[in-house]
């Protein structure tokens, strides 16, 4: 079991969460929270259950770090990171997560997930043509940087190496930018926005149904099955739609036919038809529906988190499972003063 010292906001918090979920001992130094996409109570319950949470002044950081195997430090810029004096800490593995990394001309640029998503190529391709691009809500940026940080720290523990690791949120996005840059380099095409339509594979879009929305993603091999799913078998021999290039040419006509075919079906009916036809279709689930999802329940996906007021909350556990081990419940701990703790 490793001892982890966690300093920072939602990215460091997510790294710490991964360590806790995998049985390590995490001490989190509490600090001011930047704005979030959920309430402070929800962010805390999701990220910090199972951690020791302390208040400590900067003068204590080096001593706390020296007792840890791994320090995760999330900073708002390279200079902010340096202000902690982490280069003097004796911890074997130090991971610094920052918006742009510790070097480079923009190392001290101000950033939020929203501005990083724009620079990382995500915002340009989300939303509708002719309208403002859409920024991705949530904490994808911080959590993805955290997954890289966790991987890097564990890789160094695995090889028994002492390292300073620099993880840039911006570069995390660039590394995960699908085929955006190679499409430009190789085909000379700049990606743009097509709403929910995955433009190059038709039909792949979000369609309204009787009680919500459904996404269909039809790679060419699924086309015949999709016509059965839609209960429009005649489309399989319609010359307008006989291959993907033609379906791209006649996209609007095809979308109208699909909209008409699905508008009176419920999400449940659509799921049943998709399962029978073996085509990729997913319905838009509300958070209430996700929490009540029979599949996730049967797979024992959820984890119970006990909040400070003893309220039991249902939280996602890990995104993976090793040897089908059960997910253990966790409890949120009260924040304690480090000095008080030390005196005890």
């Amino acid at each position: 079991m490793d001892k982890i010292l966690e300093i920072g906001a939602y990215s460091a918090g997510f790294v710490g969460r991964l360590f806790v979920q995998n049985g390590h001992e995490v001490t989190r130094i509490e600090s001011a929270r930047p704005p979030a996409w959920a309430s402070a109570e929800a962010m805390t319950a999701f990220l910090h259950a199972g951690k020791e949470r302390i208040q400590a002044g900067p003068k204590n950081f080096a001593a706390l770090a020296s007792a840890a195997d791994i320090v995760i430090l999330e900073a708002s810029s390279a200079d902010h990171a340096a202000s902690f004096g982490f280069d003097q800490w004796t911890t074997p593995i130090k991971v610094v997560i920052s918006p742009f990394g510790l070097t480079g001309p923009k190392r001290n640029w101000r950033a939020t997930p929203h501005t990083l998503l724009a620079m990382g190529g995500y915002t340009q391709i989300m939303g509708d043509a002719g309208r403002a691009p859409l920024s991705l809500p949530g904490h994808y940026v911080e959590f993805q940087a955290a997954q890289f940080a966790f991987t890097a720290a564990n890789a160094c523990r695995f090889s028994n190496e002492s390292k300073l690791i620099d993880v840039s949120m911006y570069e995390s996005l660039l590394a995960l930018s699908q085929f955006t840059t190679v499409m430009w380099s190789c085909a000379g095409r700049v990606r743009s926005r097509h709403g929910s339509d995955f433009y190059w594979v038709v039909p792949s879009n979000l369609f309204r149904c009787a009680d919500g929305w459904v996404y269909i993603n039809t790679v060419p091999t699924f086309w015949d099955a999709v016509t059965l799913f839609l209960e429009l078998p005649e489309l399989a021999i319609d010359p307008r739609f006989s291959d993907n290039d033609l379906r791209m040419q006649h996209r609007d006509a095809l979308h109208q036919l699909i909209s008409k075919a699905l508008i009176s079906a419920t999400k449940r009916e659509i799921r049943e038809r998709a399962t029978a036809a073996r085509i990729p279709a997913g319905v838009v689930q509300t958070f209430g529906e996700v929490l009540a999802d029979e599949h996730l329940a049967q797979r024992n996906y959820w984890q119970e988190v006990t909040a400070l007021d003893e309220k039991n909350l249902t939280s996602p556990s890990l995104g993976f499972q090793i040897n089908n081990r059960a997910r253990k419940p966790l409890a949120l701990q009260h924040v304690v003063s480090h000095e008080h703790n030390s005196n005890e």
Partner: protein
Amino acid sequence: MSSVAAINGPLSGIRILDLTHVWAGPLATRIFSDLGAEVIKVERALGRGTKVASAEPIAGWLGGEPGEEPWNNNAAFVKLARNAQSIALDLKLPRGKELFLELVAKADVVIENFSARAMPSMQLGWEAMKKHNPRLIYITMPGYGTNGPYKDWVAFGPTVEPMTGLSQMLGYNESEPRNTAMALMDPIAGTTATTALLTALREREETGLGAFVEMSLHEAGTVFSGPWLIDYQLGGELKPYGNAHPQMAPHGVYQCQSRGLEDDADWVAIACENKADWCNLLRLLDADFDPDWGLDDRQHHSIEIDLAITAWTLQFDKHEAAERLQGVGVPAGPVATAPDMLAEAQAVERDFFVPLERFATPVPGNPIRMQGSSSKDWSPCPSLGAQSQQILQTWLGYTASETMGFLASGIIAEAPPD
């Protein structure tokens, strides 16, 4: 035959048999290989396409043309396969399956992202493999996992995404939800797989035993909705905010002066995290707003504020607008296209894009920067089956004559069939 030099990294010495395809799985194995693991792509002879080029691949061809070996020229594939070696092995032939299981006995990891039924139907599931190697870590990444009511659902990233709850938050408003249309669950699953493998490898150090690691796109993606799922239970207000933010204002994407390009990318993203940012923003705007406005006031006046910001941003192109905003300390960034991303000074200075593939095609690097590791020892994507014979010789001790025999009988391949 071609050989691949070892990569210096903390996973040096770890052997991975990689049966993954499309995005999530290959992304994970690319990260492993960047960290020094020896990644062997176990491919079908037709896995990269036919010998004769058909339709242009989604991201085009390396060099812009299919070339003499179009199957080796698919840009989207190449981007995810650096540092790997390739064996084209027919797992449907009994001898091909035997060879694969011999490789399994020498490997540390097998990773695949087929449907839940695919590997067991070939008698190559975890139960079969662990008999050949009790220290093996087997990672399976089906869309909805290997059990439960949805286990046989056909899954791609874009269809899993709405099942995670994200679509309740992503959209212009409540009546206009949107899908990212970029298969967002795939990069989440890819990085989640790397966290899973490192966890399993470290556990093996303690137990000496291999492990069955299951990772569904659905569950990996739902983790990222975690804060909202808890907020829902606490009575939080959860809805699409467009480009606004529940705890920041102003927060949006604003039109800029045209650069004369037809890319619909003349936009800048701006976010004010707090009152200090708001006051700094006011230094640029020609508007008479109250610097003491708190978050509620700024959200209440968002329409007037956004109009004033747009009046200012339209005077500058997106790069200059972002520079000016940063100059007064306001978080901002231009909405980047691919050419912008490749030319971005920060990426250039840190050599993020690596031009190691043919035609000096730049591909994204790895965001994990650590002392002693760099992209200098990386190698380009291998040709299909480039190491088919070499791997059987070096891992399993077959002779050149024997591997030539496997090649002649179609058990292994170095190109797609005619």
